[in-house]
């Protein structure tokens, strides 16, 4: 028998679960808002567009010569030859190449912007080795001129990550590369969150230097494990709370913990792990760590030694995001090989990604992929342009959990498209027009489509 009318929110649940049993008086159910800073992104003005006679690299592993792409209301509707759409804006792309919008899975634009002044160094909350409670989106400066420079290089989607000073650095955010006054105005709608972790030298150097844990790699591992133990307990407490509430009881909700919200989100599979991790033995341990705590170890970033464990990465479903040639800046970056990406890519069911981690090379991820393509070919790998484009489009989309939305030229996908003046794997190639959700956001020959940061406006 109910003595009080329960609050509106839970009425339905209470009635449904109470049946004819006597239930306690229930307080309002505590439900954590998982999206408190929702995307307000709106595509720029869209046009029905037909690009004709281009060499297409679809991102699905195909190259189609003299082919067309049609997009309508922000979606790709047709890819093929001799398409007809009378009322569409037509772009004759004879001699040009067309690819999906380029995706960078690892950027610090906005959190370490240009100019690199102390006032804007907001990418690394190095006050505790585990800061899963911080969200990169709360640091992004949307006026970073680097966003425009990246757009001129065909970048349509990018993940902004916290830095690698901490074992667990916080949440990343995936953005549409469009100008906006707010970060919310750039957030990729319905993109899963990422969570940054870091192996190896950085965290142990940052904290070891202060004589606090971790100061060793074993200290690193202990730090992650302690965090995941807490997260597992936190998750159980919430599950218990939810179950008891469902059963008509009036349990006390667990004390909210921002860091553990994020970590338990990873265990729930809602938040994807992005792990700065260079070395073979560390990636191998991080894979086991994921198994120990029932989450997937995600994408390994800067995976310099991925080539040593390429089979394991493919078997376990890990993407590896790599540079083509960075090396030597740290001991963990000493064993670089120029064929790293090609070796990872050659394994069945692999997910090789080329990333930038740089405000400079993000402007030319096509060139970064090109280095791998040709060094790989020289070493006997059977790879072509239509394969290499996947490292900066479809595979990157997979790493970010966006495969259903972007990363390829296929009917139904978001119309994220780049028109290049020629083969994008040439050093002389340039993006001429860039589209995000079917809206032109950049045109090399039309100043109307060249955005400029507030910061640069009026500087003499």
């Amino acid at each position, binding site marked *: 028998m109910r003595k009080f009318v329960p609050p509106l929110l839970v009425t339905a649940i209470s009635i449904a679960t109470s049946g004819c049993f006597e239930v306690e008086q229930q307080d309002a159910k505590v439900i954590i808002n998982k999206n408190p800073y929702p995307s307000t992104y709106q595509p720029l003005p869209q046009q029905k567009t037909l690009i004709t006679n281009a060499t297409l690299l679809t991102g699905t592993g195909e190259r189609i010569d003299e082919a067309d792409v049609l997009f309508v209301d922000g979606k790709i509707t047709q890819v093929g030859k001799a398409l007809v759409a009378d009322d569409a804006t037509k772009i004759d792309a004879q001699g040009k190449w067309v690819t999906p919008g380029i995706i960078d899975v690892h950027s610090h634009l906005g959190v370490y912007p240009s*100019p690199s002044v102390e006032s804007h160094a907001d990418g690394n909350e190095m006050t505790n080795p585990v800061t899963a409670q911080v969200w990169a989106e709360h640091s992004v400066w949307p006026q970073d*001129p680097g966003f425009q420079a990246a757009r001129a290089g065909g970048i349509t989607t990018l993940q902004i990550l916290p830095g690698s000073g901490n074992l667990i650095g916080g949440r990343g955010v995936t953005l549409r590369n469009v100008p906006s006054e707010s970060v919310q105005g750039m957030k990729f709608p319905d993109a899963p969150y990422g969570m940054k972790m870091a192996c190896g030298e950085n965290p142990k150097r940052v904290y070891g230097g202060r004589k606090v844990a971790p100061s060793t790699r074993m200290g690193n591992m202990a730090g992650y494990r302690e965090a995941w133990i807490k997260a597992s307990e936190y998750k159980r407490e919430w599950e218990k709370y939810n179950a008891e509430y469902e059963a008509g009881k009036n349990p006390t909700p667990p004390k909210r913990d921002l860091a553990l919200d994020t970590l338990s989100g990873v265990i729930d599979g809602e938040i994807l792990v992005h792990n700065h991790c260079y070395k073979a033995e560390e990636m191998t341990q991080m894979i086991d760590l994921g198994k120990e705590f029932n989450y997937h170890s995600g994408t390994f970033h800067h995976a310099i030694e991925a080539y040593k464990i390429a089979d394991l990465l493919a078997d376990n479903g890990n993407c590896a995001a790599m540079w083509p040639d960075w*090396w030597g800046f740290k001991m963990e970056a*000493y064993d670089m*090989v120029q064929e790293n990406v090609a070796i990872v890519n050659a394994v069945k069911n692999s997910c090789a990604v080329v990333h930038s981690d740089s*405000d400079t090379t993000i402007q*030319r991820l096509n060139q970064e992929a090109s280095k791998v393509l*040709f060094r790989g070919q020289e070493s006997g790998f059977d790879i072509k342009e239509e394969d290499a484009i996947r490292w900066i489009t479809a595979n990157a989309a997979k790493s970010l959990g966006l495969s259903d939305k972007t990363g390829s030229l296929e009917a139904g996908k978001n119309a994220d498209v780049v028109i290049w003046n020629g083969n994008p794997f040439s*050093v002389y*190639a340039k993006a001429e027009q860039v589209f995000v959700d079917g809206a032109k956001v950049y045109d090399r020959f039309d100043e109307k489509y060249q955005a400029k940061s507030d910061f640069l406006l009026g500087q003499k």
Partner: protein
Amino acid sequence: MKLFKSSLLAMALTSITSVAHAQSVAISNATIYTSTSQGVLTNATLVVDNGKITSINPATVSADITIDAQGKVLTPGFIGTMNTLGLVEVSAVAGSRDASEKKADMTFDPSMAFNPLSTAIAYARKGGITTNVVVPQGGESIFKGQAFVVNLTGNMDSVIGNQTALLVSLGAKKEGSRAFDLQELFNKFDDAQQALNKAKTKADKNKEDSDKEPKRDEKIINAVLAGTMPLLAEADRASDLLALIKLKQKFGLDVIIAGGADAVLVAKELSEAKIPVLIDAMRNLPGSFDSLHTSLESAAMLTKAGVKVVLSAGGAHNLYQLRFDAGNAVSNGLSKEQAINAVTKNVADVFNLASGSIAVGKNADLVLWSGDPFEFSSKVEKMWIDGEEQSTQSRHDKLRDRYMTKSTMPKAYTK
């Protein structure tokens, strides 16, 4: 002639085996980018003997070995600048770093620390780099020390020149005012000039040379004052560049600017003052308030204004990318020949090197490319330093081969 101890190197040297210096080499049917007023020569033949280029398109070719270039591009070896190659093996490993020293001042000459066995050297050869101007990172002083020149043979005698230039670092500071540094710089030369004048007056009066030996730092400043050692000045902001023009004019120095992010704003003045500029072709973001005007077109704009431009990139490890930087400079306005000059002849002009162009009498530092030297799709087919063929194999290739070799035993057994 050095004998190669490494079997890998020996294997790679298929055309020249054991007596390179004694043997003359002719490269025929090449497309030669001379980096001289001769421009590009097609179907050309070049003869190398005793480490030097001895003839171009001779009436009759006589050489111990002839290589048919099959029309491929032959360029002077590319020349790196403004990096710490051979001074740093792993940047974050203190024991492998010799580019900086807290107490370093203008007397700091890091050439003695150069390690010809650094793995970064063979790697840099993959980019067709044959010569490099290494710079110190110095310490607290605005004077960072002295640049020196190396070849990329990896041989123990790689250092081919030291005291090449005095490096000074100017502009934005973490603390304090840039004006203080500029004053220090001007005062240094002013004081030295006055001391020299005084010594001269005294000597004239006594009709004999002053027996007072200048101190080590005074000797360096005097060499810069005499124009025998260039002043290599790192600066970005236009106002700093104008101050350097003044410095040059006041004391008659040989000034080279490195960085030069906002040089485009004073391109005419730099051109008139005949000050060359070393820039990073890929630097196009406003990284600081000193560099709000740098762009991918900077190299082309400066060249157009008549400034001698050198393309350079820092670090110790990825010098091999210089050719791609040059390619990007071409897609942003430089001509191909200008871009090749910017990594060969211009560097040699600025630092007085005996390489950097394909002309009789020059060092035989040459690269034969499989295609366009600036393209990702091309690679170094053959390269020579002082007429000796070089391998482009590095430790990285050994690692790759190990992990691409199938074996039932652990990889550690694959060598």
